[in-house]
């Protein structure tokens, strides 16, 4: 870094974009590897395609803007965007879904706004929502886990065929995710006490879903590791999870046949991934601690509202994007007091 201060009293902690990104990726790696094992080669190919597309989009835009592409590509932010997007896709999705999503994330949601630090919305979530609205069928084609080591799992080559969308026979059992199943059954008039009998919540993540939602415990462990390392503060994750869990607990206590319980809400869908890795994005979240609490709470409450009463079974991406739009307003509303001045900006009496 060229900005190392020479004169005292400054000391540089060594933090930089690339180092923070590396720590985030490190925290994300266990859950990702577990997801790879759970869903086999198609998931690995999809991850590679999505990340490469995100990098390609970034490089293309930088070249069009006559900027050197290498330093920006090496800071890891585009890689992380593609990675997070891949974690939110159905693991056996066709390759073009990851490719379109990756390009959309870095070109439309990031570079159009001016690159890292300028984007109003989280690029990975913009791409996910764009994909969900554009391609509702492949974006909700969840498959049951088929671990890499299990008999009948697609191998190195068969997995490639799945990702390329030309597999002659599908060995996977397609199935609804838990939230989708609950919503579909509720709309048919089957209450939760009956409909969830065949869909136990597996904390080990052995159930249909995206890479980033099944390994809930590993995602949470990675998130806590990031808090310990000082990459993120606890405010947004805690507030967001509370924002989901509190109304869920109240609703479940009132009518268990209509409302899912808090544990299911927390461990389903993108709640944990969203709370620890997506809502905490520095660029698109408020700067003050109070603002972060408000932001996280809003993300959580909106997620619960969309999941419970909205048209889509999962709402983390929408909730985060809506709160992203409010982040600048929250920053204006909850400005820190200037040192030596009161809240109105007048000097303090000496």
């Amino acid at each position: 870094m060229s900005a190392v201060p020479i004169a005292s009293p400054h000391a540089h902690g060594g933090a930089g974009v690339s180092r923070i990104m590396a720590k985030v990726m490190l925290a994300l790696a266990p859950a990702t590897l577990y997801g790879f094992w759970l869903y086999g080669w198609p998931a690995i190919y999809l991850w590679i395609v999505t990340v490469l597309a995100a990098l390609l989009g970034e490089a293309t835009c930088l070249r069009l803007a006559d900027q050197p592409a290498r330093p920006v590509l090496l800071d890891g932010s585009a890689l992380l965007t593609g990675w997070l997007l891949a974690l939110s896709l159905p693991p056996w999705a066709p390759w073009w879904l990851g490719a379109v999503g990756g390009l959309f994330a870095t070109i439309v949601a990031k570079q159009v706004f001016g690159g890292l630090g300028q984007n109003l919305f989280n690029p990975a979530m913009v791409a996910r929502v764009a994909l969900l609205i554009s391609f509702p069928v492949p974006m909700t084609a969840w498959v049951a886990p088929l671990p890499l080591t299990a008999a009948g799992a697609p191998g190195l080559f068969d997995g490639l065929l799945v990702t390329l969308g030309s597999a002659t026979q599908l060995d996977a059992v397609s199935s609804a995710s838990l939230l989708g199943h609950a919503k579909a059954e509720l709309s048919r008039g089957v209450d939760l006490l009956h409909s969830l009998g065949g869909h136990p919540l597996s904390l080990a993540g052995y159930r249909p879903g995206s890479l980033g939602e099944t390994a809930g415990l590993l995602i949470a462990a990675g998130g806590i590791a990031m808090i310990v390392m000082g990459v993120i503060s606890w405010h947004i994750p805690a507030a967001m999870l509370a924002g989901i869990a509190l109304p869920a607990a109240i609703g479940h206590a009132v009518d268990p046949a209509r409302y899912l319980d808090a544990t299911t809400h927390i461990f389903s869908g993108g709640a944990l991934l969203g709370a620890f890795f997506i809502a905490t994005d520095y660029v698109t979240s408020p700067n003050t601690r109070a603002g972060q609490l408000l932001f996280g709470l809003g993300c959580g409450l909106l997620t619960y509202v969309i999941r419970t009463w909205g048209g889509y079974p999962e709402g983390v991406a929408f909730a985060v994007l809506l709160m992203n739009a409010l982040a600048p307003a929250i920053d204006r509303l909850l400005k820190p007091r200037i040192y030596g001045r009161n809240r109105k900006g007048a000097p303090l009496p000496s």
Partner: protein
Amino acid sequence: MKLFQVFKDGLWSQNVVFAQMLALCPTMAVTTSGTNGLGMGLATTAVLVMANVLVALIRDFVSRQVRIPIFVVLIATLVTLVDMALNAWLHDLYKVLGLFIALIVVNCAILGRAEAFASKSPVLASALDGLGMGLGFTLALVLIGLVRELLGGGTLFAQASLLLGSGFAFLETTVIPNYGGVLLMILPPGGFLVLGLLLALKRVTDARLATRAAVPTVAAQGA
């Protein structure tokens, strides 16, 4: 020559959508296909030319204080005529464009041209200005509509025969058969995305043209 310049400005350098950023409401609403864009553009062009000619004709008799109400009444009358004519002769297209035809009356580009150009210019120049602006608007709508239609449905000029008669059925092309379609492009966000990207493209093109035009002059000065 100057008259031709008036016409040319409307097509490109003063384009209603791509340069003045006016009339974005109909632009977003009807450009879900090339055909819709073309129909809306032509209807607006008809209103623009007639409104400009009428305003230019009466500009000497209308006092400044009441000019805006007079213009509005004129434009509203013309729009009603176009609305009824479309309903009578192109009923299928009317069913698609429906509400937006009536909304031509609040298209800011029309009152804008009446106020900014026709109320200060002779009849012929005003007519040409209306024609240029209208065709430029049509060009923009068709371009946006075609891009959105291609990405969203894989076709070009679908249902063009409804607008232009069965003789133009050859325009209807299916570019990508068995195409699932990017639903987002047909929805409102697609309109904003495509407009933004086309605007960027126009600016890049203009900048390229400007540098290309500037290079020989500089060389000539140096010599």
